């Protein structure tokens, strides 16, 4: 009598253990998926809050030079020419080219900016300094390292130089704030030179020159 009772208890325990072993990994996967979906929906909500860049179909389609990584090791930039309808207004035009840069090239290995980063605001000061404000994903999703961070900054500076001649320098903000570095390496406290023919250095923070590894855009 006692033996049978023990048998049933052990059977129930073993069954529970087997069920838990099967169910717990499934539960963990579901929790991870739910967390990812929540993160995506937050990013989606943030994107929806941002005013879309108006694309006027009447804007002339112009050859636009965009700078993405040139090779698979991701250490230099190369220009890619695409036809885009671009506004004549320098602020709108800058938003259009930066958003195209954020969207990335066809070959995703050549992208220089994280795909989930969003351009929150962009304006140009009277002295030609452009202020680009990006979402936090720009700092948190970019691969950490000097080469990848410098490449990201240079791709923006060179693309703006090639397409928006009014811009002299670029200042990058993250979520409206000045931050010390992009992802632990490249200095964001200063401005980056966009117009490489600029002779007079600006007052205030020291401008950071573009990397010598980046080929200068050909006119």
């Amino acid at each position: 009598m006692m033996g049978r009772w023990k048998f049933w208890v052990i059977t129930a325990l073993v069954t529970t253990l087997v069920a838990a072993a099967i169910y717990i990994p499934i539960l963990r996967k579901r929790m991870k998926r739910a967390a990812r979906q929540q993160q995506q929906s937050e990013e989606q909500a943030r994107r929806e809050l941002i005013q879309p860049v108006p694309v006027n179909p009447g804007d002339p389609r112009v050859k636009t030079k965009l700078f993405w990584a040139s090779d698979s090791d991701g250490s230099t930039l190369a220009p890619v020419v695409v036809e885009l309808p671009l506004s004549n207004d320098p602020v709108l035009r800058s938003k259009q080219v930066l958003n195209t840069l954020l969207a990335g090239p066809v070959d995703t290995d050549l992208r220089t900016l994280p795909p989930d980063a969003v351009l929150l605001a962009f304006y140009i000061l009277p002295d030609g300094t452009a202020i680009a404000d990006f979402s936090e994903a720009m700092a948190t999703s970019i691969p950490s390292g000097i080469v990848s961070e410098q490449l990201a900054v240079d791709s923006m500076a060179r693309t703006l130089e090639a397409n928006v001649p009014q811009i002299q320098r670029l200042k990058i903000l993250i979520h409206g704030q000045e931050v010390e570095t992009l992802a632990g390496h490249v200095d964001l406290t200063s401005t980056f030179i966009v117009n490489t023919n600029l002779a007079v250095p600006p007052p205030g923070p020291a401008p950071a020159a573009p990397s010598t590894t980046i080929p200068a855009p050909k006119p």
Partner: protein
Amino acid sequence: MLLDVGNIIRFRFLSICGLASVLLFSTAIVFSFQVPSPTQQPPATSPSQAVPGAPTPQTGTAGALVTSPQQQSGFNIVVLDPAHGGTDPGARGTGGMRESEIVLDFAAEVRRALEQQGFQVVPTRQGNDNPSFDDRSAIANAQRGAAFVTLHISSTGLPGTVRVYVNSDLPQLTDATGMIPWDRAQAPFLGLSHKFGDLVQGFLAQRFKGSPDTAQTASVRQLRTTAAPAIAVEISSVVVNDRTDLDRMAPGVADAIARGAAAFKPMYVVPATPGTQP
């Protein structure tokens, strides 16, 4: 009414014990605040302690490089900076690899190689702590005749290659006293940094195929506030399948840095007068 003497004595005894415990506890708390934890300890060679009169980040200047009489003239010190640490792991790779941990191991190897070449090595961190950029620069700025090497592991790039970076051009500015502002302390040393960087990169290119032949420029935050010839060495990358692939690179990287420093020694003439620019 009866007075229970036993209870009174027990009460007094307990009160004394309680007071003694409170006193002991308070003393322990006071001492724990006075003795900083290993992560809070200032660096051993912080300018305000090791070199009297040397500027600190708070003074806003980095130009006056004051030396103690014991220090030898000439380039004989390398300030070695394993990047990141503490709550900042840096780049994260496969299998939980952390840049902050790998660079510590590399730093130990580089230190041995530099000491074999006769250099004195001053590390910016030896454990899992994270001094600020300015704290790390301050260690180098307090030395005379020092060079600064910051070690990084990237999360991109061709695995097995190494790149040396020198800070991008900074306009030289001096304030009314002739001192260099702290935030562009690297400006007068950029020429020397390029020479040092090119030498180290040359030795690295011989060992690690696919590495560039000369040093690159980038706006590296750590280098900007360093008043010494300063380079960043970045190894590719944490995205390797096996940590041993990176570990195998350490002796080669260490040897190249040490040989680069030795070759740079005759080029780096430390000014005879402290505080003068190179």
